[in-house]
């Protein structure tokens, strides 16, 4: 196994009863990268991450974490934010962060000192002495996230980290993830919100139905779909349809169609010569959202987004 990989998995399978929740997942996360695991709800993202971390054992397949095939052996070098957030409500914030560091081998005194600095940097300086039960949900979530980085891990695994955060805290979290990458850590996170993945990920995998449907960079993902053209005629007329590519669809005042392999110029010349004119014209690069919809289906994405909307504060 390459030592340049922070995480690698081949043929991971997990069954719950008769259901194969994870069905032969392969993942390779290079060191020092931000890697996204994308997928709709129920795709198997959380189960995959839990197997990678050694919380649960795969039924089939192999995985290594920081070059070790026994994930627990390297747990001191890993930070983890689970999907279901959990903190002891009676603990003070700095104690909670220091405790999470102590679990990973950081001494308590250093943990408390770093906790205070981290909270200050994250804009939570006013809450260093507060008990967890007094915090808002978003603040508690940030405290837990700080607990997962306090020991300065080589690998940070975040399961749906943006879930339940307001836009301000989402931005804070993005900053923190980028800072961790800049520190040299590898960040592996799962999400079904494309905007975060598009902004943050160096590489990503799209999982659906327990299988990896795509693996590569954001640019690679976009390259799986052709560019689209959006054309708005100056003089609309029913006859225009015959001059456009066969997949052209009317959207409002304009037409959207796949950019022809030979380019747009020939089509435009025909449209101008026929007197339709050009009121508007744009070439659109496919988004990660488009790729995701194509891979997992529009309904699965809509379900995920509806579930996420319910979690927002």
């Amino acid at each position, binding site marked *: 196994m390459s030592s340049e990989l922070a995480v690698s998995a081949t043929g991971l399978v997990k069954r*719950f009863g008769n259901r194969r929740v994870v069905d032969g997942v392969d993942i390779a996360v290079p060191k020092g990268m931000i890697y996204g695991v994308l997928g709709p709800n129920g795709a198997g993202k959380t189960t995959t991450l*839990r197997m990678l*971390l*050694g*919380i*649960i*054992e*795969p*039924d089939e397949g*192999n995985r290594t974490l920081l070059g070790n*095939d026994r994930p*627990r052996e390297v*747990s*001191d070098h*890993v930070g*983890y934010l*689970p999907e*279901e*957030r*959990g*903190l*002891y*409500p*009676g*603990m003070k914030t700095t104690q909670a962060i220091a*405790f*999470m560091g*102590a*679990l*990973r*081998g950081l001494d308590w005194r250093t943990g408390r000192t770093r906790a205070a600095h981290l909270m200050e940097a994250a804009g939570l300086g006013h809450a260093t002495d507060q008990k967890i039960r007094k915090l808002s949900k978003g603040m508690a979530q940030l405290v*837990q996230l700080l*607990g997962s980085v306090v020991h300065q891990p080589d690998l940070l695994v975040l399961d749906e980290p943006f879930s339940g955060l307001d836009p301000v805290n989402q931005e804070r979290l993005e900053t923190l993830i980028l800072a961790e990458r800049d520190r040299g850590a590898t960040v592996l996170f799962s999400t079904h919100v494309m905007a975060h993945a598009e902004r943050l990920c160096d590489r990503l995998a799209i999982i659906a139905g327990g299988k990896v449907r795509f693996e590569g960079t954001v640019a690679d993902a976009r390259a799986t779909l052709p560019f689209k053209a959006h054309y708005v005629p100056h003089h609309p007329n029913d006859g225009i349809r015959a001059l456009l590519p066969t997949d052209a669809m009317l959207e409002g005042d304009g037409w959207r169609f796949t950019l022809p392999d030979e380019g747009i110029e020939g089509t435009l010349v025909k449209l101008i010569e026929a007197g339709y004119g050009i009121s508007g014209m744009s070439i659109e690069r496919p988004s990660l959202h488009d790729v995701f919809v194509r891979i997992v289906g529009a309904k699965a994405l809509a379900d995920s987004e509806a579930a996420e909307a319910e979690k927002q504060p």
Partner: protein
Amino acid sequence: MSSLARLIRQTLTIARRDFVATVFTPTFLLFLFAPLMFIGFGAAGSGAAMSITKNSDVNARIVLLASDDQARAAVAADRRLRTMFRPIEQPYPLIVEAPGANPEAQARAIFERKESDTYAVMYGPLDKPQILYSKNGSRSADYLAALADQVLRAQRAGTSASLSEPTRIVVARAGATAGGHSQAAFFAVTGLFMISLLLAGQVVGTMAEERSNKVIEILAAAVPLESVFFGKLVGMFGVALLFLGFWGTVIVNVGSLLPAKLVTAFIDVGPAVGLPMFGLLFFAYFVTAYMLLGAVFLGLGAQASTQRELQMMSLPITIFQVAMWGLASATAVEPDSWLGTAAAIFPFSSPFAMAARAANSPALWPHLAALAWQALWVVITVTIAARLFRRGVLQSGSPRLWLRKKGTA
């Protein structure tokens, strides 16, 4: 850092969190001072019971119907006989009345008097006295018979003074008696049972906190579940030690204020291995009893997903503890019987049975073997509890065995 050192560090981290979270709360004060309520209610109850007994004893008596000469001799004999009884065992006061024309009718009438409770009445010649007694007055009747006998013996000897003049010398035994060993064994078993009943049961609900707060996922990702379970056991054991330390100090200080007479009542009670060694062994068996029972309770409690399920578990847990106590105390007198050996081998009754054995037998090597055996079972129980939790609650398979993994690699 070696794997063992890492495991210990992780275990102590969990233990520290649990200890602090338990001790630095107002609820802990309630827990710490709970025995005061027990002592308070016990004292009030026994005070009331003593008061009732005392009130009923004030009117109790035994009666002798006798002429003046006989009466004087009987009172003198009664005074002598009473010196042989401890205060709480004294016969009821003797009342002497002159006999009437019909002593039997007179005696029967005495039982009907409302102002007093008469338990026995003696009348007639002392060589063939008639003794009437109530249903619960047979001991009083025996005493009156002995009194009559004593008076006659004094009359025939021509003196009421003692005929024998003994010289009494107190001799200190080198060690406790065989009966004292048995008593020490019973005290040891019961003492261990009481403190483990009070303290080990506290462990049962500790995993519920992690499950309800969803912290278990954080812990399971960071440290082995075995460390989580051991850490919780050690943390709660620390709480138990604090509790015992506090009450131990109180009891030792109160004990030093007790009258010397009370202390001499226990002078024959002593363990066969000697008091200092017995103290050490008792503590060691407390540790293993706590860890063994605690591991079982922790494992069971970890499977419960609701408070209702936890509450339902309290009865079988108490029955299990009582069963272990019953098994061990049945063997306290005969540790070498087959039942005694079985109780010493069965891991969950072993600490109790071996504590009793320390009181009965001076041999030390069985204790080293027993402690190692019990420690092994603590590890086995915690490992099973952690695996069941991993499979049932975390819905994971068990980690692959080393050989299997190497074989498939």
